C-alpha cells in the first residue's frame, strides 16, 4: 500500500483520488481477511453458549438465549477442573525448570571457554532439528523402564529437554550482550561465580527470562503429542488431551464440546491479548533461532 501511495504522489493530483480509493479498497480486503481469520473463534464462542437445537437451527448467528450453563456442564462432566490443574502443574514446573537450566547453561556458554564447548553448542543445534515425533517410541520405552510413564515427570522432563535448545540459545545470545566489566568489578570484591551469577547477572536477565517463559508456557500448555503417548491415567490428563477425548465421548453434544473448548482456549487468549507484542516477538525470535 505504501508503494501505491508513493506512486500516486508522483503521478499528479488528478489520479490521487483514484489511488486513495484503491487504498481504501485494499484496507477493506485486509479487514475482511482479519475477520475471516477470527471467524472460527467467533463461531466457537457463540456456539459454546447455544442449546443443541439452537446450534443446528441457527449455526451462524448469535445465540437466541445465552446458555452459560453449557460451560458449567462442560466443566463438571468433562472433569475440566482436574485437567486444568494437571496442565497448570506440568506447565509451571516445566517452565521453572527450563528457565533455571537454560539461564545457567546460557551463562556458561556465553562467558567461558572450555574443552568440548563447540561440541555442546553443536549438540544443542542438532536438538533444534530433531523432529519430536521420531522420539516418541524410544522415549515411551525408556520411560516405561524408568517407571516414569503416567506421572507428571513423564511430561515435565521431556518438555524441558525439548525446550532447552531454543531457551539456551536465546539466553546465550542475550548474555553475550551484557558487558563483562560488571563481573570484573564483582571479582575484585571477591565474589565467586555463583554470587556473581545470582546477584549481578540474573537480575539483568528479566527480559529474556520473560521471553523464554512465554514461549515455553505456550508450548507446554498446548502440547498434545507427549501427553497422548505418555499419559494414560484419567486423573493425570492435561487439558488438550482431555479435550480430544471429550469430543469423542460427547461427540453429538456439540454445545457441550464447544463449551469445553471455550473454557480451554480462554486462558491463552486472555494472555495473548495482554502480552501480544511480547508473544509475537518471542515466538519469532524462538523460531528463527531454530
Amino acid at each position, binding site marked *: *500500500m*505504501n*508503494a*501505491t501511495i508513493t*506512486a500516486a504522489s508522483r503521478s499528479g493530483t488528478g489520479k490521487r483520488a483514484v489511488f486513495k480509493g484503491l487504498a481504501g479498497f485494499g484496507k477493506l480486503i*485486509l479487514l475482511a*481477511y482479519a475477520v475471516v*481469520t477470527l471467524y*472460527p*473463534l467467533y*463461531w466457537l464462542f457463540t456456539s459454546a453458549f447455544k442449546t443443541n437445537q439452537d*446450534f*443446528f437451527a441457527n449455526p*451462524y448467528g448469535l445465540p437466541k438465549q445465552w446458555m452459560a450453563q453449557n460451560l458449567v456442564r462442560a466443566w463438571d462432566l468433562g472433569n475440566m477442573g482436574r485437567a486444568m490443574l494437571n496442565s497448570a502443574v506440568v506447565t509451571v514446573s516445566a517452565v521453572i525448570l527450563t528457565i533455571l*537450566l537454560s539461564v*545457567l*547453561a546460557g551463562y*556458561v556458554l556465553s562467558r567461558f571457554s*572450555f574443552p568440548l564447548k563447540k561440541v*555442546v553448542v553443536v*549438540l544443542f543445534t542438532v*536438538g533444534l*532439528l*530433531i*523432529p519430536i*515425533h*521420531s*522420539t*516418541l*517410541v*524410544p*522415549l*515411551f*520405552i525408556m520411560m516405561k523402564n524408568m517407571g516414569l510413564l503416567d506421572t507428571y515427570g513423564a511430561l515435565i522432563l521431556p518438555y524441558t*529437554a*525439548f525446550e*532447552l*535448545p531454543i531457551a*539456551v540459545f536465546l539466553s546465550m545470545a542475550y548474555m553475550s550482550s551484557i558487558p563483562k566489566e560488571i563481573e570484573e568489578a564483582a*571479582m575484585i570484591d571477591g565474589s565467586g*561465580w555463583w554470587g556473581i551469577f545470582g546477584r549481578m547477572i540474573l537480575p539483568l536477565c528479566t527480559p529474556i527470562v520473560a521471553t523464554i517463559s512465554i514461549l515455553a508456557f*505456550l508450548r507446554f500448555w*498446548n502440547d*498434545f503429542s507427549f501427553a497422548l*503417548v505418555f499419559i494414560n491415567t484419567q486423573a493425570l490428563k492435561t487439558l*488438550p488431551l482431555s*479435550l*480430544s477425548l471429550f469430543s469423542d465421548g460427547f461427540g453429538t453434544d456439540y454445545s457441550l464440546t464447544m463449551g469445553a*473448548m471455550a473454557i480451554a*482456549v480462554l486462558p491463552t*487468549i486472555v494472555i*495473548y491479548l495482554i502480552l*501480544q507484542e511480547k*508473544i*509475537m*516477538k518471542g*515466538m*519469532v525470535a524462538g523460531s*528463527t533461532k*531454530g
Partner: protein
Amino acid sequence: MPTAMRSKGFIALALLPALLLFLIFVIIPVFWSAYYGFFSWKGFGDAKFIGLDNYKEMFRDPIFWRALRNNLILVVSSIVGQVPVALVLAIVLFKNSLFSRFVRSAVFMPMVLSTVVVGLIWGYIYHPQFGVANHVLDLLGLHSWTRAWLSDPKVNMLAISIPINWANIGPYLVIFVAALQNISPEIHDAAKIDGSAGWNKLIHVTLPIIWGTVVVTIVLCISGSLKAFDHVIVMTGGGPARSTELLATYMYNSTFSVYRYGYGSAVSTMIMIVSAVLIALNYLATRRKSS
C-alpha cells in the same frame, strides 16, 4: 580472583544439569530408536533381532508411501500457502499504524491456540451436515462443490492443509514485517532518486534485500510440516482408510495400539532420515542461490 579450579567447578555444575537432561531425553532416544528398529518387540518379553525386516516391511507397505506423499503435500502446501500470503500481508502492513497492528495481531492469534482446538474447530467447519464450508459454497451457488471434506480421499489432504496454513501464517508475517522494517531509509531514498517505485521497487529493491528471510521461512515451513501430527490425529486420526496418514501418525498408529515397538522405532528412524534429507536438500539449494 576466582581460581581456575573454582571456574571449572562452576562450569560443570551450571552446565551439566541442562546438558544431561537434554542428552537423555532428546539425543539418546534417536540412537535407541535406530537400535530398536532392528528388533521385533511387543513391549514385554524378549526382543527378537530381525535385521532389516522392519525396513523391508515398511518399504513394501503402500500406506507408508501414502504417508510420505501426504507429508510432501503438506510441505508444498505450506510453502505455497503460507510464505507468499505472509509476504504480501507484510508488504501491505509493515507500518506500525493502529490498523496494521490490529490486522497483524488478528492473523497471529491462531498461533497461540492449542492444536487440538484448531483441529476440533476445523473438524466442525468441514462437517458434512452443519459445517460452514459447505454452507458458504451453497450460498455462492456452488452446490456441486460441497462434499465431506475430510472423508473424500481426493481432497482431504488439501482440507487438512488449510487449517495448518491458517494457524501458521502469523509468525511468518511478523518475521517479514521485522525484515522490512530493518531496511534502512537510505535505500528507500536511493530508490526514489533512481525513480524506482511500486512494483518495480518491490521486485528490484525490496525482494532481493529480504531474500535471506524468505529462505529462512521456507526452512521453517519444511520443519513445521513434519510436525503436523496433532491436527491429523484430531481431525481424521489418519483415516478414512488411512488416506490422511502422515509419517508421524503412521508411526503412532502402527506402534501404540498394536504393540509393535520395533516396527515403530524403524518408522521413527525413517522420520529422522526424511527430515535430515529435506533439510540437507534445502541447505544445498539455498547455498547455491547465495553464492
